[in-house]
């Protein structure tokens, strides 16, 4: 029962585990409520600020604007990254994937400036920076997944009389789709990191990043914490959604993992 929570690799009952998580969250909230840090806003202040952000500053609308931009960027970046990664089957394209992966070291500010020179509208700049940023991270993760393909897997497809392209399609494209979705899930967070920065540079379309920037600027710490918690909750919901999609479309993907 309870002692299972402290035994390595133990499998506590779901009800026990959920109760434990609930208690941990409650403990943190109580700690926050009764022992507030001097610099950190109290739970009450954050609650009040959250209410104010929703009712007077359009938090939900700004969140929606950021979310749709992020999803749009992620969609485009995923298609691009899949294309670049799958093309590594052809030696001619391998340098492109290698270069794309290394471009994640480029700084966002310099990149934004460069994009602004190339593109006319603020929205396009914002979207292209996000797409670029997400693509280079996705390519890194996706090529790593592709590189885990073993000789045995490819030989297996070949012994079934499949051509090289068909073997690649069966083993790498179809066989690793679930891993690709996992790579997308893991890298979605990077878009949230970037979007808050990009929205402060291009303020015309608003967004939760701009709202956060304003709270920072006027030293509304409670507002900052409230927005951060909203972003955290949105990210957790996204993770859950991706895990759900993975279970739905790729039911085999979790069968061989340790429970």
């Amino acid at each position, binding site marked *: 029962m309870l002692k299972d929570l402290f035994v390595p690799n133990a499998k506590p009952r779901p009800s026990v585990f959920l109760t434990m998580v609930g208690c941990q969250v409650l403990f943190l909230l109580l700690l926050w409520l009764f022992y507030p840090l001097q610099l950190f806003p109290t739970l009450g202040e954050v609650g009040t600020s959250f209410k104010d952000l929703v009712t007077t500053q359009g938090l939900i609308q700004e969140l929606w604007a950021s979310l749709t931009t992020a999803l749009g960027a992620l969609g485009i970046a995923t298609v691009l990254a899949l294309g670049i990664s799958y093309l590594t089957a052809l030696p001619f394209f391998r340098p492109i994937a290698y270069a794309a992966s290394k471009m994640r070291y480029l700084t966002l500010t310099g990149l934004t400036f460069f994009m602004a020179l190339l593109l006319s509208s603020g929205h396009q700049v914002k979207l292209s920076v996000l797409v670029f940023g997400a693509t280079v991270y996705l390519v890194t993760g996706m090529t790593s997944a592709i590189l885990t393909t073993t000789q*045995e897997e490819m030989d297996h497809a070949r*012994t079934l009389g499949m051509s090289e392209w068909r073997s690649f399609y*069966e083993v790498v494209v179809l066989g690793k789709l679930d891993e690709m979705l996992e790579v997308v899930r893991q890298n979605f967070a990077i878009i949230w990191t970037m979007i808050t920065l990009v929205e402060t540079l291009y303020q015309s379309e608003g967004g939760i990043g701009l709202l956060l920037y304003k709270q920072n600027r006027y030293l509304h710490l409670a507002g900052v914490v409230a927005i951060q918690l909203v972003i955290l909750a949105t990210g957790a919901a996204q993770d859950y959604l991706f895990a759900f999609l993975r279970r739905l479309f790729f039911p085999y993907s979790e069968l061989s993992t340790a429970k």
Partner: protein
Amino acid sequence: MADHSYKEPILTLRDISMQFGGEVVLRDISLDVLDVVRPGVNQGQVVGFYGRSGIGKSVLCRIIAGLLPPTTGTVQVANPQRPVCPGDVGFVQQRYPLFNHRTLLDNLLVAAQRKHALTEAKVKVEDFLARFDLAQHRRKYPAQLSGGQRQRAAIAQQLLCSEHLIILDEPFSGLDIAMIDEVKKIIIEVTTSNELNTVVIVSHDLATTTALSDTLWLLGPERDAAGQCITGATITKNHQYNLAEMGLAWQPGIQAKPEFVQLIEHLKDEIRKS
């Protein structure tokens, strides 16, 4: 009258050598598998293939399966003989790979569709599911199958799409005695269902494999006149055993015969020496 005779070649290896980065792994391997004919029996061929771990058995299997071009030499299959291509020879690798993203039914269908239209492929697959005692697992993914079920599925998949040749890499390793009997039954069923069906068994289980085989190959280093090992493993004429000619093939209960026991001891000595 002899109880068996030989007809056309099924598998021919000529002067196979293989080097990796200048290191000779295999050299001068020439082998023939001929269609053995027994009156009143659909008799396929079973070749037992032995050698110490790391000697190059898997490399030779990949060459025979057309997955790895040899540095020199040729592999010919089928009748009339032609150079081997990937897909001509079924190869069930040690860990019984299947497509993990497909159900068992889909795994077999994708193989059967290589030679048959969809409707016909479905009929074939149903037949194989029943023959290999896998019908109740058709909707399962490979990760949900037991080791034995997975092995049967991998063999069925290769049989559905390969020609007459199939290589089984360590088919008995890690199996309990009941499962070994089951795999033996499958091999006998495969080799007696078509005159040209040929199974090459790569194994360290000498007794079980030899009892099933009509030919044995022993891969190992050859020694020169001074007794020094020559680089690169080979299968010399002395290490190609025709069990049919020796009167040690196709006999139930052969393992109890003194000649069989002697042969196993001889094989063990040869492997130790290599």
